[in-house]
């Protein structure tokens, strides 16, 4: 099967097409080339994606420049577009989500990592991982028929009565709005926080905890004052990951946020997120400027998640290098 070695020694072609063909005949080089091509296609595709986003938002970028990010007006009739209401909505719902999911998630992770017997911990962690697998549209479906009426009839009037002096809880109770969006997101990012934090806590070396306990700390103190700070970077990374996931979440938020591009101090008010407005208006944006404005919004979202993901990976990397436990 191999070509006669004599030919190679005579001509010494170490470069050139003949040498390439010869090297390809040996399956190794072929394998190298083929797999490299596939790997390279990922670079190609991602670059193409960024390029398409950039090129197809040119009209809007040139027209509005940086003021796009700070303008509150979204007016297709008079062709004035600004991203601020959507950035606001995206950030507010994500903030609400984190405010709820981080304490609950961390608490659950602590329980699973520190208290629960290993089999219970594994079993519950398994169930919680399943929660992460539930599709977004099903969260939306559930939220429309359970969460929204609950918010409208009980929770928001209740919050308004108790805390109505805060601008956060003023205004009529629609059910849909920032609060609904934030709550749905909280449930969706909870599994990520729990799962990553649990692993980070489990990775804390036992001697750290034992040392604390030996000095007379209660279990809680050993956890909160020793283990959690040790795993701090990883836990923070999980929060960033959760945030990145929350920012890009489309369907569930679209179904409950109220679809109104306005900035309001009240959590009860309807709002809009970047992903939601793209989902609603992309296929119908008549007029190139409108379409480019929507794609520019996609670009903004892309950059936001890009930065956050980078930070998250950096933080998790820091932890796994510091910890002595291995995968």
């Amino acid at each position, binding site marked *: 099967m191999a070509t006669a070695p004599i030919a190679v020694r005579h001509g010494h072609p170490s470069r050139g097409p003949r040498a390439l063909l010869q090297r390809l005949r040996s399956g190794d080089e072929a394998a190298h080339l083929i797999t490299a091509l596939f790997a390279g296609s990922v670079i190609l595709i991602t670059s193409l994606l960024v390029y398409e986003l950039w090129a197809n938002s040119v009209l809007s970028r040139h027209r509005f420049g940086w003021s796009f990010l700070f303008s509150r*007006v*979204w*007016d*297709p*009739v*008079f062709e*004035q577009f600004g991203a601020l209401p959507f950035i606001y909505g995206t950030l507010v719902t994500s903030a609400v989500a984190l405010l709820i999911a981080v304490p609950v998630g961390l608490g659950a992770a602590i329980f699973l990592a520190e208290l629960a017997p290993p089999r219970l911990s594994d079993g519950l962690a398994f169930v919680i991982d399943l929660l992460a697998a539930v599709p977004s549209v099903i969260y939306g479906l559930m939220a429309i028929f359970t969460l*929204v*009426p609950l918010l*409208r009839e009980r929770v928001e009037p209740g919050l308004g009565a108790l805390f109505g002096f805060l601008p956060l809880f003023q205004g*009529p109770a*629609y*059910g*849909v709005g920032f609060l609904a969006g934030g709550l749905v997101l909280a449930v969706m990012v909870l599994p990520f926080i729990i799962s990553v934090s649990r692993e980070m806590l489990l990775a804390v070396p036992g001697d750290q905890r034992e040392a604390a306990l030996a000095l007379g700390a209660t279990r809680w103190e050993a956890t909160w004052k020793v283990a959690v700070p040790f795993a701090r970077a990883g836990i923070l990374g999980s929060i960033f990951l959760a945030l990145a996931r929350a920012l890009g979440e489309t369907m569930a938020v679209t179904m409950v946020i*109220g*679809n*109104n591009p306005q900035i309001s101090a009240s959590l009860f008010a*309807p709002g*809009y997120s970047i992903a939601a407005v793209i989902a*609603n*208006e992309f*296929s*119908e*944006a*008549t*007029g190139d400027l409108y379409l480019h404005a929507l794609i520019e919004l996609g670009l903004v979202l892309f950059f936001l998640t890009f930065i956050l993901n980078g930070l998250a990976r950096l933080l998790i990397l820091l932890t796994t290098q510091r910890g002595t436990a291995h995968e």
Partner: protein
Amino acid sequence: MKVIRSLAVLGLLVAPGGSAKGQSFGPILVNGAGATFPYPIYSKWFDEYHKLHPNIQINYQSVGSGAGIRQLLSGTVDFGASDGPMSDEQLAQAKVKVLHFPTVLGADVPTYNIPGVAQELKFTPEALAGIFLGTITKWNDPAIAGANPGVTLPAKDIVVVHRSDGSGTTYIWTDYLSKVSEGWKKKVGKGTSVNWPVGLGGKGNEGVAGLVKQTPNSLGYVELIYAIQNNLPYGRVRNSAGAFVKADLAGVSAAAAGAAKSMPDDFRVSITNPPGNSVYPIASFTWLLVPASIQDGNKKAVLKEFLRWMLTEGQKYAEPLACARLPREVVEKELKAIAQIH
């Protein structure tokens, strides 16, 4: 290798049918998208037509008039549908000339959900404009209460509901408001998608009807058929002659009667707030948007035949679904216009 083989077999099994070009045996699939208002009647029409011609499938998605126009302009669907006629700028963007074919007549109605109020409400143009501008915020505002003596309106905030997607229904509504309110015209204007001063956004007529149904003290605008099918109360609107008219087929047909005589050749006409005693002021035609030149021979034949069927046989399905039939003059003019598709 076994895997590859079985995958190949699987692929062959799942890829029958061939392309739509040239084969008259396989199903001919025509794709359309657009207005949500006529979705009940369009889905009925396409279903009935499919029963008559089993190998013809007309797949219509009600994604909103704005999306229908956009997708037609991009060439990703074979025909569009819209409650608002395409503007001159949009027509200029089209690579091929686009023909408008009115299909039925519909009406936008103000639908509301006020717990405790079972009576029918009357709305003046000023009240509607004020509510949607956000200047009138409570149900018991004099502008509303004045037109409704004898009805106890609650002192609650009005939850305004509008469309979140690009919509012909919105076009009709804002077209009307622009005609009756200078303030609206200056501040917001008319279009399939506008910068709403207040309110929640629902996707499609379905979304708005759904939101109004679920939200107490809400007011939204939907096409007549959606209000009827969902048992939503809807109010009377005062027309230019001063009468409070409830939307029904007679009032809508009356609104169209005037336009029928003077219908422009391209069928793009607005019939909101017309003169007349018994007209309903927020009525409109809805159009199918068909390219004047279609490459695919099969699809062209299907569309032309369907249009002919729709204008003759199809009209009888309109009234049970709360759409008004087209006036006779318009039908005759359209039948002649079908020849323009080549």
